[in-house]
Every structure is written in structure tokens, then in C-alpha cells.
């Protein structure tokens, strides 16, 4: 995989790579994708899904419920006046 493609993929994934990493992942992913060419010759089918077994559609009653105390969830978060702190939007 060429360096330009790896850089584009890394940007999409929010990862900044060092020069060493760019070189290493470029080599590794190239090798792995070459191996994946085996999939081109694999038999296909039409009746496939995204899970290996049938999955039920389960909906709970549309009633408000709190399983975990919000203060508990906020305990270890970086907060300010009860709000989660994050970076600037712009």
C-alpha cells in the first residue's frame, strides 16, 4: 500500500503516524491485502446477513428508566459544572 493511501486512511481514522509508522504500516498492510486476494476466488452467496445466527428484534416499552445513576457515570469524567469537558468546536 502506498504512503499516500496510508496517510489518507490514517487521517480518516484520526491517527497521526510518524515516518517510521508510515513505512511499517505501508509494508504490513500491503502484505496483508495481498493475502486477502484469496477472497476474490472464494465462493459467494446471496442469502447472507451481518450476524452468524438469527437475531431477534427486541424493543423495550417506551418508558423512561435510569439504570445507572448519572452522578456515578460522571464520577471519573473530566467535567465542569456537571458537563463533560471537551475541546473547542472551532
Amino acid at each position, binding site marked *: *500500500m502506498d504512503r499516500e*493511501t*496510508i496517510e489518507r*486512511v*490514517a487521517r*480518516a*481514522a*484520526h*491517527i*497521526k*503516524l510518524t515516518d517510521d*509508522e508510515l513505512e511499517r*504500516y505501508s509494508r*504490513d*498492510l500491503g*502484505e*496483508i*491485502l495481498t*493475502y*486477502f486476494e*484469496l*477472497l*476474490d476466488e*472464494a*465462493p*459467494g*452467496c446471496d*442469502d*447472507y*446477513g*451481518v*450476524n*452468524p*445466527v*438469527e*437475531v*431477534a*428484534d*427486541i424493543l*423495550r416499552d417506551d418508558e423512561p428508566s435510569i*439504570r*445507572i*445513576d448519572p452522578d*456515578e*457515570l460522571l*464520577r*471519573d*469524567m*473530566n467535567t465542569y459544572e456537571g458537563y*463533560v*469537558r*471537551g*475541546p*473547542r*468546536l*472551532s
Partner: protein
Amino acid sequence: MRSYGLSEIRAINGKYSMFHAMTEEEPSEGRFHFSAKDNLTSKGMETCSGSRILEGYRPAFDATSIERMKAAGGELIGKTNMDEFGFGTFSTNSGLEVPRNPFDLERACGGSSGGSACAAAVFEDHVSLGVSTGGSICCPASFCGVYGIAPTYGRVSRYGLIDYGNSLDKIGVLSSKATDLRKYIGVMAGKDERDPTSCAQPELGDSHVKLGSVAVPMEGVEGLSKDVEAAFRSALVELERMGVDVEYVNMPSLKYAMPAYYVLATSEASTNLARYVGMRYGQQEGDLSLKFDDYFTSFRSEYFGDEAKRRILLGTFTRMVGFRDRYYAKALQVRKVVIDDYKRVLADHDAVLAPTMPFTAPRFDDISKMSALDSYKADYLTIPANIAGTPHMSVPCGYDSDGMPIGMQFVADHWNEEVLFSIAEDWEREFELRRPEVVA
């Protein structure tokens, strides 16, 4: 029942590094002790999933699996070391501690539930919860000489599991006692509305099923080390002596399972890991004056390990416009073809059987010389059952010339765990299990 005190647990952990976090209180008498892989949330006990990016995360709730073990009288004594987010075959891809094999400290425990297998082998009367995505229960069970089962996908609720691949992850059990598999899968199984994938399951069978026949795929006996091949052949002879018919079969789809698995697993992982951005959990001390994207990128670049970055990149690439059909859609089709292949063979046999791993636990210095692809290829025996979501189990079946354990893996049809429980219980009566010499 053997019980361990806090100082003893700490001393043992100092030698084997099976736990990342441990209980801080003296374990109580009368409750059974268990440990859980560190990607299962545990209330008040640090949960990092082997990653530096989650250091300091103390969940406010127990995963359903842990909750049910506690309700059954269990006491959680430790969270087990693992490959970061489950990304590995040897538990060496960790941002934290690497567990050591109880039979040889210079060798790996296998992965990614390596710490769980180590704990199951070292502590007496101990059960450990593992999680399998591509073989992460059976591989370390084989390397550490214990029993390990991954039930059908959806049998045990994944609520509270830090996801690797949502369509692949399964919570199971590792123990040096075969009877623990039935007992503790029974404790954890059942519907949980917090994980809809658990809600279509039929009731877990609990009868004893006499094993009548096993199918050995020709594709599963290729590329084995000499010792593994010899131990496996001896085990087949023993099974025949026990009255089991052994038949060799062809399962041509198995060779496509490995690339299909890595496409599906990394595609799902790359989206799951998008949530780790230096807010809400774990590492959060960053430069808040940075712009949104730069802030997120700074955390992910600093705290994700080498293999996590590699799998995120791979998964992001295979989902990109122009590649989706070639990789992701094709991998889903291959999964169905593999399932159909298992169903075809299991229509005539009780289980599919092959060695669990092609070699015994490697030394750490040999692992460091392996390429990423070499490491992926080592999973070729455990991946097919995982991609198919079929229940599978590794049982100890021999030891190599250095005394390292060897395992064999049985695969049953969806929801048919009881045949695996029965096989393990029957096998345990015939096979002399060796325990490692434990010196803290």
C-alpha cells in the same frame, strides 16, 4: 475448596502477571473465586481492555456476565491481562502487562484471553471468564493446558463487554476442571434485553450426550508441528477406544475463513474504537485548547498501541468507498459459506475436531520476530468456528517434548453446547491433566 488470601494472590500475580487489576479486599471464605478478562466491565475495579487509552477507567456497572457470576455466589478477584482490545494471538500486544505461561515463564500464554488461561491453570478451584472473537479462548486454553469454551454467538449477553467485533464476540469460560464449563456457562447464559443478540436463543441444553462420531477436516491437519500432530493422532486413537467414530472429511471453505475474519473483525473494530478520543473514559488529560479533530487525534496517536493502529487502519481501508464490496460484502458471504459447510458436516456428525493451535506456546523472543501476517496466519484453526458463531471448545490432549500443553478443538452446531460439555466431562475421566508447578 481451595481459597487464596490477598497476599498470596498478589505474590502469585507477581510471578505470572495474569491480573492487571485485583481485589483490594481480603477475599471472603465460602464464595467461589473467579476472574474476568479485562474487557468486561467490573463495577469499581479498573477496566482497561489491555489499552493505555483506558487507564484509570473504573466502570459504574458490572457486565451482565460478571453480574450473574456474582449473583451465583462468585467473588471477582482479578481482571486478566490480554492483548489490547483483543488484538492478538499471544497476549503480547498489550499496553499494560504481559502474562507468562505457567509451564515456562519465557513463553506466551496465548491470546487474547492469556491472563484468563494463566489464572485458570495456576489457581486451584478457579474459573476465569474469557472472550473469543477469532480464537481468544481456545488458543490460550491450549497453550496453558486448561479447558476453554466459547459458546454460540448470542448465548451469553455482551452487555458490558468492550466491543472488538460485535458480530463475532462471545463470552466463555476457562478452567482446569471440565465440569466447570457446563456449570458456569449455565450461570451466564440466557436472555438479556440489554443485548438484543442474546434474545433469540433457545434454552441451554443440560443433558449428557454420548459422543457418537467426529469429523476431522483434512484442512485442519495441515501445517502442524510434529508434536501437535503426534498428540492429536494419539487423541484420535483414544477417542476410538472410547467408542467414537472418527471420519476424515473435506471442508473446502475453511481456507477462506481467515481473510474473511480479518476483514470483518477489523471493519467492526475500527468503528468501535472511534469512541476513544480522550473524553469520558480513561485518559482525559489533554490540551483542551486544541481543535476538535486535533484533540482526538493526539490521544489516539499517543495511547493506541502498534497492533491497535494497524487494525484500525486495515478496517478503515476495507470499509472505504470503492473497496467495500470487494472486502466487507465478500467476507459476509464467506461467513455464510463457512456456516453452510459446518451444517453439512454436522448433519452426519456430533462435532468437528482438529488441533486447537498448530504449535505449542512459543517463546517471547520468537514471537518478536513474527510479522503481523505470520501472527494472523497462526489463527487458521480457531477462526472458522468463530466466524461461523458456532460453539467450540479446547480440551487438553497431550504435551510436547518440552512439557508444553497441546489442545484439540471440538466444534458443535449452533446452540448445541451440551454436546461439548459432555465431551469435556467424558474426556476428563480418560485424560491425565498435568498442573503446572506453582511457586510464588
